Each structure stands twice: as structure tokens, then as C-alpha cells.
């Protein structure tokens, strides 16, 4: 009982070691020839080629707009409440516009809507909580910024045009 000894005694061929080295070298040589003659590789040339990700991929946030470029958001604070990372900050105000093109009056609107992308964990809870389908996560995964300030998305950035889910 107790521990099981799984170590084995090496045969003379295995102890000689050069045979194993030679076998390994043959494997790398085969790979070398595959790469050199047949240009076979498993990587992609990133900026030119891109991987196709799932339709469910959750990337950079955006807020959907209607035909008048008015955001669908009514500043209901549901997303801010549900957000586990507490990265959404909304300040609401009253909307003074008339009825929209579709006769829907949005009485409340966000004065500012900031998402701190550095805190966001991309769980998608905000998207699920939103009653107006306003906040959404696009499929864009290239979110590099040059300063920390630019990583805090304001309303202008969020209202950018995103076709489909990007």
C-alpha cells in the first residue's frame, strides 16, 4: 500500500539517449521541411488576417441609437445597479425634445454616461439588464488606448455607429 512506484528501469537503448535525440531531431526536421518547402504554419498574419470569433463575443461597449441619432438609453440606472465591477457612471437629466419620429417620448436621458473600460469585466450583465436594448457589447476586441483617460468611454464614444454587433 501507500505510494505506487511508477518509475521504470530504462533499457539500454533508452539509456543510450542518442537514439532518442535522433528521433527528436527527425521530428523537428520534418517540421522544418513542412515550414520551409510547403509554407505550412498554424499562425495568422494578424493585422492582415483576423480570426473569426463567435457571434456571442463580448467586446467594446456601445449604445444603440434611433434614426435621429438619439440614444435609446433612458437613464434608468439598471445597468449601473447590476454592474459587478461598478464601472458604469450615469448622470440623468430631463429630455426637452418633442415626440420622436415614432411617437415615443423619452422623458429621461443620460447627461453623461461613462464606462470605465479598465474596470469592466465584460460580463454582459448590463446588456441583459437593459430594458431598452440601449447598451450593448460589440464584437470589437481591439480596444487599445494611448492614455488612461481614453479608456473611460463617454457618451460620444458610446454612441458611435456600429453595424450589427460590429
Amino acid at each position, binding site marked *: 500500500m501507500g505510494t505506487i512506484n511508477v518509475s521504470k528501469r530504462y533499457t539500454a537503448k533508452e539509456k543510450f539517449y542518442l537514439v532518442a535525440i535522433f528521433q527528436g531531431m527527425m521530428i523537428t526536421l520534418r*517540421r*522544418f521541411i513542412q515550414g520551409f518547402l510547403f509554407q505550412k504554419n498554424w499562425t495568422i498574419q494578424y493585422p492582415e488576417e483576423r480570426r473569426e470569433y463567435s457571434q456571442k463575443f463580448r467586446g467594446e461597449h456601445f449604445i444603440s441609437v434611433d434614426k435621429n441619432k438619439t440614444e435609446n438609453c433612458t437613464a434608468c440606472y439598471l445597468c449601473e445597479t447590476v454592474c459587478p465591477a461598478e464601472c458604469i457612471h450615469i448622470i440623468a437629466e430631463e429630455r426637452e425634445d418633442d415626440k420622436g419620429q415614432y411617437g415615443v417620448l423619452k422623458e429621461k436621458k443620460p447627461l453623461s454616461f461613462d464606462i470605465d473600460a479598465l474596470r469592466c469585466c465584460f460580463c454582459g450583465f448590463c446588456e441583459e439588464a437593459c430594458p431598452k436594448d440601449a447598451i450593448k457589447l460589440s464584437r470589437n476586441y481591439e480596444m487599445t488606448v494611448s492614455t488612461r483617460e481614453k479608456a473611460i468611454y463617454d457618451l460620444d464614444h458610446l454612441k458611435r455607429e456600429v453595424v450589427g454587433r460590429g
Partner: protein
Amino acid sequence: MSLDIFSVSQMLAKIIFVIAVCLGVIPFIVWFERRGAAWMQGRVGPNRVGPFGLLQPLADVIKFFFKEDWSPRNANKFYYFLAPTLALIAPLAAMTIIPFGSFAVINDQVINLQIANIDSGVLFLLAFAGLEVYPLILAGWASNNKYSVFGALRGSSQIVSYEISMALALLSILMVYGSFDPHKMVEFQNQKIFGIIPMWGVFLNPIGALIFWIATFAETNRLPFDLAEGEAELVAGYHLEYGAMKFAVFFMAEYIAMIMASAFLATIFFGGYNLLPGMYFVVQKIGTHFALADIGMQNLKAGFQFLSLFIKVAFFIFVMIWIRWTLPRFRFDQLMDLGWKILFPLALTNLIFMSGVVYFLNR
């Protein structure tokens, strides 16, 4: 040696030729190292700069030139700057005794195609190859960094252990040749066994050749013996504190050491500049086609002799790169086990065996 214009100029020409070839092939080796690694691992490798990424080493050099020349505050400045210089000088100096052809004839004067024709050439080469351990120790110690010191410690103990097996393997084949002069050794290997197989050292003394080959990997700090650098545990080892052009010099020195070790291996065990099988017919075909005289024929042959040495060296460097991407690094105790418990007794036994064989054959 007389100091007339011709001898001085031919000497200078040979020195420039050897240095130019050594330094000129480094970018290609670096490119091949990266590209070959990529091919072996199913990647593409550097392919942006120039055709097939061939200008990538040039871009690296430009980057190295324009980086800040920084040195650590508490480093010993003299030794810190001496180390990369020494690293570059030692293998280049060792290259001087490698014969890269038998002789050429220009203006009725015979040019010995070897920079320094020293009778004890192999000893000279061994001395300078042994000098390669000093830059490691100096760089590790002078840069005042514990990782560098660890790298230097490992590198020095590794090179010292493997140099013994290397020297014993060398001794076993030197007894066969009966000479320290590389030219004579290469000419000895020009004979044929049973009229077919070239009498290369590797066929006369295969175990010695194998031990020597393994030891060259350790001497040049290539994988699987690159414990002096050991990226995984020592960051970069002995050249950790070196940046910009100082690092580039270390980098070049490593490749020149590779070239030197491969050329040495080719000269001692693989027939040196002797024409590769089949090349002699090519030389004769070209000679008869252009109706060359004896002198022209000899010069043509010398050119092909350089080519065959070049091909051999290229093959050994390819094997070094090939091994690098095949084998993982040894653990330090495994390294010492291999050096002292396997290679050293094997080399010693082989030496005794070879001396017996040589004694009975020459009696």
C-alpha cells in the same frame, strides 16, 4: 618571413577576407536561426523587413546602434567594457589558424590559404577557445548583478568540465595525425580508406568525433548547454546588464564562436577544406572546359576547397540551430553528470584505445 609588399598585402587580404566572411554571414545565421525556429515550430517568423525578412538583422543592428548606451552604476567599468571586446576577439583570433584552402598561386608566388601558419596551430586555437570563458566570468562579475554572477558561475564550471573531454577527444585524434599543424591534418585526411571512403577523422575515431562535437555545443554555450544564459531562470544570464551595442557585440561573438567551433570541427574531424565527394569531377570538368593551365587549375581548386569548407561549416551551424529547437536545456546536475560521469570516462577510454591502435599500427 620577408616583409615585401606582396607578402604584406596578401596577409592583409587574407585577414580581411576571413573577417569579412565571418561577420558577413552572421546576419544570415541570425535570420536563419529565427526563420528556421519559426518553421520548426509551425510559425512564419520575421517576414516584414525586406524580401523573406532578410533585412531583419539589419533593422536590429540599427536599433542597437540608436539605443541608449547604458551601464549599471555599481559596475566595475573597466571589466564591464572589456568583457564584450574580449568575447569578440577570442573566437576571431582562433579563426586565424583555420586553413580555408590548400594554396593559391598569384604572380608565381604561392599563397598559403591560412592566416597564421603556426606549427602548433591546434594548441593556439585551444588557447583562444579557452579564452572564451573569460568574457563570461568578467561580464557576470563586473555587472554586479546576482543573476549575472549565477550565469557566469554556471558558464565557467560548464566550460571547464567540457573542455577536459574536448581536449581528450582532440588528443585521441591528434595521435592519429601525428601533428599539431592543421594543414598537415587536413592533408592526412585527403587519403582514402579502401580507395573509396575519405579518411576523415570521424571515420577513424567516431567516438572522439562525437565527444568533440558534443563538447563544442558546451563550449559555444548553445542549447542544450546554454546554462550561462538560461532565459527561464536567469533572465539573460551573464549579459543581463548589457544593452545596446554591447549586447550586440556579445551576440555577434556567440555566432563567431559558433562559426569558429564548426570550422574547427570540420578541420579536425570532417576533412577540413578537402573537396567534398564528387566535387573533384566538377573542378576537372570546369578546368577542361576553360582549358586552364596548372596554375589556373590550382586556383580553381582552392576556390572549391573554400566552398567545401563553407558547406561543411554551414551544415554544422545548421545542426546547432536544429539541436537548439529540438532539445530542452539540461538541468545543472544532469549537465555535470553528462560531462564528468559519461563524456570524461568515455573520452579517456577512447584515448587509451586509440593510443593502443596507433601504437600497434605504427610498429
